[in-house]
């Protein structure tokens, strides 16, 4: 028996050694310069492209795909990656599975987490970049000076969605011009017996972080995130801590809905539309939720949008996954070129159809925004050029600030613990990336 065991152990060790040798998760790829841009209608018969999309973006490219297939003879498949989308994609890419294209947040932190320099095609020299309205091309989509993401729709903006009827009933005729006026209005509305603010701590409390981020807009303009990125300033330092404390103070003051701990994202939309609450600090996807519950005319009558920051009306932009696409280095030069051609078509001949089919704001000069786009969305898009980047857009990593704030709402973390936990996670992410100062 002894000898047989020795044999099996030896075999096991050898198999293990062999498998270890060939299990490096992603083979390194030489970085290359800007690639050539083929003509939009180059024939692509027999080429099949795969696009990864999330559950809320898998219908977005349909009109573009139809047009592209007709124009080039290529076949384009959309594969839905289940939520949480970002985690799913990251895991697949880390183990070597790649599509040709994928929806992806065009922010530096999210491009870093995909290991953009190694896995993504450079989109430098893309013909559509010069046609972006209001310098959108320079605001996002790049990492260390190289363009990796193609922005296809107006980036989301953090700001205040408000119920116009509630404002009118409270006698408020113009939207607040800064944070103090914003709070004055809220207290006025509370005095009339209506809940001023609605947020949700039940389910995944992802909107909690907007409350902190809009308060950081002016600081962000002054380089807050550059200092955080180099560890010269921490989440636990005064600037961010104060924003968290203020948010907690507003909750304690009773300016939020009484069911804050258990309310969900769905409840938030219903409450604002019904006028049970006056305001929510939210992003564009919240408005998408309202659009699913109501029609454009009702929304134009009832819901408005204004950006807010401590000193004025500066918005905080946060491009999300449905706003942009990235193209992967797959190793197949034909498909890589076809992927670039697809993006070129999307932002070229296919763009007018796209904004019409999606009823979204055009971000390209010469393409009109369809009349079916609700006013609040137009207002959000109008706020983009003067906006400053959010934590997701400007920080090197995206810690789970929202979860920690959710814990604060539930009472399991103090405001100090929120910033401590966030800083800790931020530091370990920054360290893993090799950021200087960590």
């Amino acid at each position: 028996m002894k000898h047989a065991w020795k044999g099996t152990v030896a075999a096991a060790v050898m198999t293990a050694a062999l498998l270890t040798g060939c299990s490096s998760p992603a083979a390194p790829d030489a970085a290359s310069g800007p690639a050539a841009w083929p003509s939009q209608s180059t024939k692509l018969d027999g080429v099949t492209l795969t696009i990864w999309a999330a559950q809320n973006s898998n219908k977005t490219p349909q009109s573009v795909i139809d047009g592209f297939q007709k124009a080039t003879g290529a076949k384009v498949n959309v594969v839905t990656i289940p939520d949480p989308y970002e985690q799913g994609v990251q895991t697949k890419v880390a183990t070597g599975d790649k599509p040709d294209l994928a929806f992806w947040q065009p922010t530096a932190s999210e491009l870093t987490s995909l290991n953009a320099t190694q896995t993504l095609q450079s989109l430098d020299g893309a013909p559509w970049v010069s046609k972006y309205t209001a310098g959108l091309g320079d605001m996002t989509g790049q990492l260390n000076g190289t363009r990796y993401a193609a922005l296809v729709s107006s980036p989301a903006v953090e700001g205040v969605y408000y119920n116009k009827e509630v404002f009118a009933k409270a006698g408020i005729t113009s939207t607040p011009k800064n944070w103090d006026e914003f709070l004055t209005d809220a207290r006025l509305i509370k005095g009339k017996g209506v809940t001023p603010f609605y947020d949700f701590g039940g389910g995944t409390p992802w909107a909690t972080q907007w409350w902190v981020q809009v308060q950081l807009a002016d600081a962000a303009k002054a380089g807050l995130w550059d200092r955080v990125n180099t560890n010269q300033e921490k989440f636990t330092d005064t600037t961010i801590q104060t924003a968290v404390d203020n948010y907690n103070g507003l909750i304690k003051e009773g300016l939020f809905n009484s069911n804050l701990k258990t309310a969900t994202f769905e409840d938030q939309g219903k409450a604002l539309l019904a006028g049970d609450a006056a305001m929510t600090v939210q992003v564009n996807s919240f408005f998408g939720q309202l659009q699913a519950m109501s029609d454009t005319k009702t929304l134009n009558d009832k819901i408005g949008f204004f950006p807010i920051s401590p000193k004025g009306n500066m918005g905080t932009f946060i491009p999300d996954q449905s706003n942009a696409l990235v193209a992967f280095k797959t190793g197949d030069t034909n498909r890589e070129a076809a992927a670039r051609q697809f993006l070129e078509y999307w932002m070229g001949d296919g763009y007018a159809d796209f904004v019409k089919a999606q009823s979204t704001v055009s971000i390209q000069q010469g393409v009109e925004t369809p009349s079916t786009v609700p006013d609040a969305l137009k207002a959000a898009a109008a706020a983009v050029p003067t906006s400053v980047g959010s934590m997701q857009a400007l920080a090197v990593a995206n810690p789970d600030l929202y979860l920690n704030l959710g814990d604060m709402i539930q009472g399991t973390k103090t405001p100090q613990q929120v910033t401590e936990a966030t800083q800790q996670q931020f530091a370990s992410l920054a360290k893993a990336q090799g950021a200087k100062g960590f």
Partner: protein
Amino acid sequence: MTAQLSPPRSRTGTHTGDRRPTSRRRQDHPAWFLFPALAVLTVFFFIPTLFNFFYAFTDWSSFKTQINFAGLDNVTSLLQNGSLLADLRTTLIYAVLVAIFQNLFGLILALILEADTRINRAARVAFFVPVVMSALAVGYVFRAILKPDGTLNAILGALTGQHVDIAWLGSTTWTIVVVALIHAWKWMGLSMLIYLAGLKTISPDIMEASRIDGATWWKTFTSIRFPLLAPAITFNVATALLGSMNGFDIVQATTGGGPGGSTELLNIFVFRTFGQGLFAQATTMSLTLFLMVTILAFPVIKFLRKREDVLS
């Protein structure tokens, strides 16, 4: 209790093979027969486990292509992070609660459905259905039932005639108990089945003797049947306790670790860390869990096996 499995051999036999029975037994199954099974075991079990050890000491992340050795870096940073210990504690509480509830429900069901009547057989099948259901589906169904405007509150409201909106999954203290109950509900059918099988192995003679002695049902249960169920209890408690330490799906689907992180099992933390791209740190955490399960498994199983001594 020992059993004679091989036929008695003549000690004075002249055959060479009979002189060395052990060598003959070895020839019954040549060692190389083991290779297919061993290969599968190696590829799908040993190597992943080894990798779990190996990657825990590297800086593997989604941000870099190379994987470098990082020593105890992950361990130290995890120990500094309060979440790890808090989540280990949550995991342990959850596992103990599940083990208690699942075995209690399973045993009660087995005692109720012991007799082999037609109704009982149908009821056993009904209670076994959740075992084969998808854990995520169970989680989502319960989330819908337990939400403030969900079915349970509607039923309670109809019974009491008042508006009820209790947030069953909203308490930072009691939600872990609710989630453990859901986990136990899903798996109690399996415990029931094993207890039923255990009850069937008890000799009718002993039961008859106790009846003749005039023992009550409760006395029979506490003094005879429960002690004799020891092997079933060993299996059920060990699998429920150690299995739910690895719990993830039901909690993720019902609370996602909330409210306020009060149901955040270690595996949910691992999932979150992995999702952030910190693969090596996530591996270190799962190694911690592996160690905790191992450390816990030995004394628990030893204690439970000790109880089985009554059988011998």
